[in-house]
């Protein structure tokens, strides 16, 4: 296929950015979206131009590094996937594709399509952990049975890859799905209970500090989340917060 790409170029966080048009030819439908960008970049480098900077690493949908807002959708037009799992068979010959960085006040652009998601780090540092000594002798793992149901549910919440699509897609730039997933994982397991109240309070406080908006129950995050993290996690987080504030 032959495609026209409209890509956001921005030299660094201080520079003003703009959309630039590029053409790519001979794109196979079996390529992933990022491989298509590799083709463009090879073309740019061969012409002595700077390639388009975008974040990626695992290229199999698990590291959460890739981002991209493609034709107005976080991670592009397919469901339940990340950008690196998006394949060109989702597009047609002759298409024009718009590629922008995730846009949210809390995710400043670093360069071109790369944004800074450190706000997520700080939220987790505010309490997204169980305070167990890492150098001690912990009790035998089977001494605390956990129901299969709880473990499975905790696993579903823990599957969040921290990509930020939920934020990017939300009209309020809310990070509630991400934070809800984190809070839920620990809320569902017996280990984290003793500090549950502090955890949720601190994480939510940090989330607000970072400049993420509030949730107005639109549900766009759930739709775009590559890992199918459900809105139930937001509800659970709110319950946990209420409980903590009682």
């Amino acid at each position, binding site marked *: 296929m032959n495609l026209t790409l409209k890509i956001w170029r921005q030299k660094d966080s201080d520079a003003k950015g703009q959309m630039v048009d590029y053409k790519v030819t001979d794109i196979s439908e079996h390529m992933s979206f990022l*491989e298509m960008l590799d083709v463009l970049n090879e073309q740019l480098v061969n012409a002595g131009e700077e390639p388009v900077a975008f974040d990626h690493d695992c290229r199999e949908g698990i590291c959460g590094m890739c981002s991209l807002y493609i034709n107005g959708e976080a991670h592009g037009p397919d469901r339940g996937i990340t950008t690196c799992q998006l394949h060109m068979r989702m597009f047609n010959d002759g298409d024009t594709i718009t590629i922008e960085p995730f846009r949210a006040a809390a995710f400043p652009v670093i360069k071109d399509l790369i944004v800074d998601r450190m706000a997520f780090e700080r939220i987790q540092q505010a309490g997204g*952990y169980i305070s*167990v000594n890492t150098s001690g002798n912990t009790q035998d793992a089977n001494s605390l049975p956990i129901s299969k149901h709880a473990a499975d549910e905790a*696993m579903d919440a823990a599957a969040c890859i921290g990509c930020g699509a939920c934020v990017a897609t939300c009209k309020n730039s809310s990070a509630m799905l991400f934070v809800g997933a984190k809070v839920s994982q620990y809320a569902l397991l017996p280990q984290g209970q003793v500090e549950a109240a502090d955890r949720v309070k601190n994480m939510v406080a940090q989330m607000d500090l970072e400049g993420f908006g509030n949730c107005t129950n639109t549900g766009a995050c759930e739709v775009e989340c590559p890992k199918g993290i459900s809105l139930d996690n937001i509800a659970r987080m709110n319950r946990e917060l209420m409980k903590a504030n009682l």
Partner: protein
Amino acid sequence: MALDSKIPKGPIKDKWTIYKDKIDLVNPANKRNIDVIVVGTGLAGGSAAATLAELGYNVKAFAYQDSPRRAHSIAAQGGINAAKNYMGDGDSNYRLFYDTVKGGDYRSREANVHRLAEVSGNIIDQCVAQGVPFARDYGGLLDNRSFGGVLVSRTFYAKGQTGQQLLLGCYSAMNRQIARGKIEMFNRHEMLDVVKVDGKARGIIARDLITGEIERHSAHAVVIATGGYGNVYFLSTNAMGSNATAAWKIHKKGAYFANPCFTQIHPTCIPRSGDYQSKLTLMSESLRNDGRIWVPAKIEDAKAIQAGKLKPTEIAEENRDYYLERRYPAFGNLVPRDVASRAAKERCDAGFGVNATGEAVYLDFASAFERYGTEQAKIHGIKNPSKAEIIKLGQGIIEEKYGNLFQMYEKIIAENPYETPMMIYPATHYTMGGVWVDYNLMTTVEGLYCIGEANFSDHGANRLGASALMQGLADGYFVLPYTIGDYLADDIRTGKIPTDSKEFDEVEKEVKDRIEFFINNKGTKSVDHFHKRLGKVMWDKVGMSRNEKDLKAAMVEIKAIREEFWKDVMVPGSANEMNVELEKAGRVADFLELGELFAKDALNRNESCGGHFREESVELDGEQKGEAKRNDKDFAYVSAWEYKGEPADAVLHKEELEFNDIELKQRSYK
């Protein structure tokens, strides 16, 4: 320098205990005065950083991603081994030790592997305490699955996302220490060299990948935990950024590089589909627990399939060649990775491959659907279920076990694996070689440690599944924190290490000169161009099957590519900004040297061993005729290479391996 592995004396089962009882300890008040640099925050570096901080040291941690949670460890799917014997099927520390030494083709160090087995159980306890949601059975206890090459069920897992969950566990432990100020985290920073003062590692030079600034960081000890070098093949299952730079730079500064040619080829990857491909995707090996591997038995069927004229479901049972079950009846589809990989290549080379490129075999779940479905029908009291009902019930179970893998496959190949068998092919996956370390995990440079996949220590020649995660966490949580203390005990009065010394000046200058070179070299070819060419030589001549003639040719070819690279590489942009091409250029430059040493090591090792088949070393007769032949008489050693300028000039040091507790036996999976 003579290699001293510093293996403690005493019976194998007591070595680690005796060692721990005797080492020097640093008192908590003094730990506050000691800085440790940890480069890499995957499972190995992340667990080490968290634990060292917990103990009281000041830790500076570095990673090139924006968060430790994105390290390559996140991608591990299958699981982690531990000798818990929760299943009561006869597992023990000794048995895990034995399986790992055997699976490593008797090329690993007994004492290290035994220690690994000893601490394995603790790893699970630690992770569960951190809230890692491992799979549970209905009674609420931990569940296990079995992995290729062993006969017990000792692999703990969290769906198909075990690496992710383990990494999130140690990442959360890190976050706790970052919040307390005990870990200073440097995201998007790349270590570009190590600094030695009076022969000891005392710091690193790193580049801030956002601003391009070159920084100096000092510490009393430096820990390298930067993962494996599988990307030397260009195409591999490794994350795109995985690289050898840190390991290679410390090699050039005096750390010996061990067994570079030991790489693991994984049998169950998604086959490649074209020239533009940037990486290969692994399908967890756990799939082999339930999937059966086959190709058509008749060459004309294979040809029809390749041409797209026949579907796998149209081939009758008797016309299928379940070649692993045929050749290795005792282990069947669960033979170790190298055996499964070579057997697949053998069938495909003989023309029986099942995709357009002829480089794929089937992994078929049809009989698992039936087996599980029948069981489920019984459990749910369904009388006389129809075949379709059975299949549906069975598919439900398979979906529960491997749903995300099936989904991933479908996204990539655009075929529904519940309806038609998956296609798989071997790919480069894991590197067992790496920086040489002694029992303390210290390299041949004092104060410079190396842990996780970046070191060579525990895997020998053919790591089994689910042991890399175990080694990374064992090193980080339970081994290094002890051994490094023994070394740092001498440093309690040293005080801060200054960074304004001539040693830092010199190394910083080397680093800057190199960057300047790339920016100013107005060549004509992209970095990827050279990386792809290197990868092709590596796969064709230094891949699964090797011979003397090709290996010699590979060394010459790699050198030639390297020379051309330094003349003609082009890196656009500048040094003082985020510059992805510049990052790649530095990494590929190192791969171009490592690749040659890799081939040299392979040439030296004239035996078939672990993941690779040396064509000159094959069983000539008997039951094992045609199978790989290991040569313990001449090659029961670790090859540790000393840097002497050009990779071809590297000098070989041998660490002779002693097997006192396990008898060296030729492997047989028949």
